[in-house]
């Protein structure tokens, strides 16, 4: 199980600039679905890449689903030369997204994102409208249930900008 609280605490303690996305963001807005991992959209500035590396370095990050024993090095270079990463850590699964369909990069999303109190800290989180746009853009049949739930949540919360 992914320890969302501990992962968020680490990211915040290391002042990583990130926005919570995916299932955890949907849960934060009231979704009743199960969550499997923590998805974050991270800012790709050099300083933020260093903070992200530091925040996960002692959690043994390793590419999810990859063969064991690969010479995977967790450092700024690997982040700089990639974009999206799905990592197993000792606190569970984390998806690091440099960009999302229907939303773009951190800088494109941060202004409209919501600031929510999650556990003992405040974290930026995709707004309900941003989540819906991202799900629509992904266009995956498996997301139709989730998209329907997000739209129902928007109707129930009486907001179009939640």
């Amino acid at each position, binding site marked *: 199980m992914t320890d969302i609280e501990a992962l968020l605490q680490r990211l915040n303690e290391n002042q990583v600039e990130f926005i919570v996305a995916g299932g955890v963001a949907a849960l934060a807005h009231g979704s009743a679905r199960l969550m499997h991992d923590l998805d974050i959209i991270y800012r790709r500035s050099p300083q933020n890449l260093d903070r992200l590396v530091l925040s996960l370095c002692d959690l043994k990050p390793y590419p999810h689903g990859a063969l064991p024993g690969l010479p995977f090095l967790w450092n700024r270079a690997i982040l700089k030369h990639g974009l999206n990463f799905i990592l197993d850590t000792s606190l569970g699964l984390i998806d690091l997204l440099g960009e999302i369909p229907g939303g773009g990069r951190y800088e494109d999303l941060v202004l409209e994102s919501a600031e929510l109190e999650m556990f003992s800290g405040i974290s930026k989180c995709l707004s309900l409208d941003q989540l819906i746009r991202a799900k629509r853009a992904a266009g995956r049949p498996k997301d139709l249930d989730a*998209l329907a739930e997000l739209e129902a949540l928007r109707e129930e919360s009486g907001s179009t900008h939640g």
Partner: protein
Amino acid sequence: MSDVDDDWRDPVVEVYKRDIDRTLLRANLKLTVTERLQNAMQHARFADELRRAGRELRARSR
């Protein structure tokens, strides 16, 4: 994403919406964000435990 109309309704999604349990959503909306996440983590722990128990049972029955 200025070309996106947030109020647009996809007829396919409207069909899926009929099966959404809105009582669950309304109950969640009464909770704080932290309470929603704590509940989700409890459910995930429970699901993990069920999976572990299932694995053990299958191993014992071999």
